[in-house]
């Protein structure tokens, strides 16, 4: 069966520090991968999605970037965090063929101080 892992679960980082959040999927090949952000009490905003290694689409201009160095690995990064980067970050995957629904990881709570 397919599983998705996100880490860390929580993170407190100072303003101006770098960020790296990792997401991996197991049990499937060539998944579509997504990064979402959720501010407290609000909806989910799509940040990046990827249909293959090295293929990244950015949905909103921001202080973040994403990379997909391996088929089942998706990384969210920043060189210098801003206070406004605080939020709940969620990784998700779907089958590229559309056979499976979209499954989310457990999320990373990022607080920039």
């Amino acid at each position, binding site marked *: 069966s397919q599983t998705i892992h996100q880490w860390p679960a929580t993170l407190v980082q100072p303003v101006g520090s770098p960020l790296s959040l990792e997401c991996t999927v197991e049990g499937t090949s060539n998944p579509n991968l997504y990064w979402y952000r959720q501010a407290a009490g609000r*909806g989910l905003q*799509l940040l990046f999605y990827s249909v293959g290694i090295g293929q990244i689409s950015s949905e909103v201009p921001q202080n973040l970037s994403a990379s997909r160095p391996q088929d089942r690995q998706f990384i969210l990064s920043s060189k210098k965090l801003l206070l406004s980067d605080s939020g709940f970050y969620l990784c998700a995957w*779907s*089958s590229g063929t559309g056979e499976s629904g979209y*499954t989310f990881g457990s999320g990373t709570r990022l607080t920039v101080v």
Partner: protein
Amino acid sequence: GESVGLHLPTLSVQEGDNSIINCAYSNSASDYFIWYKQESGKGPQFIIDIRSNMDKRQGQRVTVLLNKTVKHLSLQIAATQPGDSAVYFCAETRAQGGKLIFGQGTELSVKP
């Protein structure tokens, strides 16, 4: 479309009553829709999905209705239980496997 800048509306129901959560979607070209349940501090959990060639789909205690004419989705929960308390989101995509765009979300509170 994405309503990520708005605070969540809330729905309060009595335990045992039926709940109806509504969602307006934005893209008339969307052809696949999903309802998610999100508990505090956790990722969204899949509840039920529906394709655009259907107008109703039933699961265990849940029913999704799709009205393409007015671009409206609803989630009906029968005999609502305290464990149903959560935030519920609808999501749409133009093709399964494509970008999934979330609606605003509704916070459901179940009173015992």
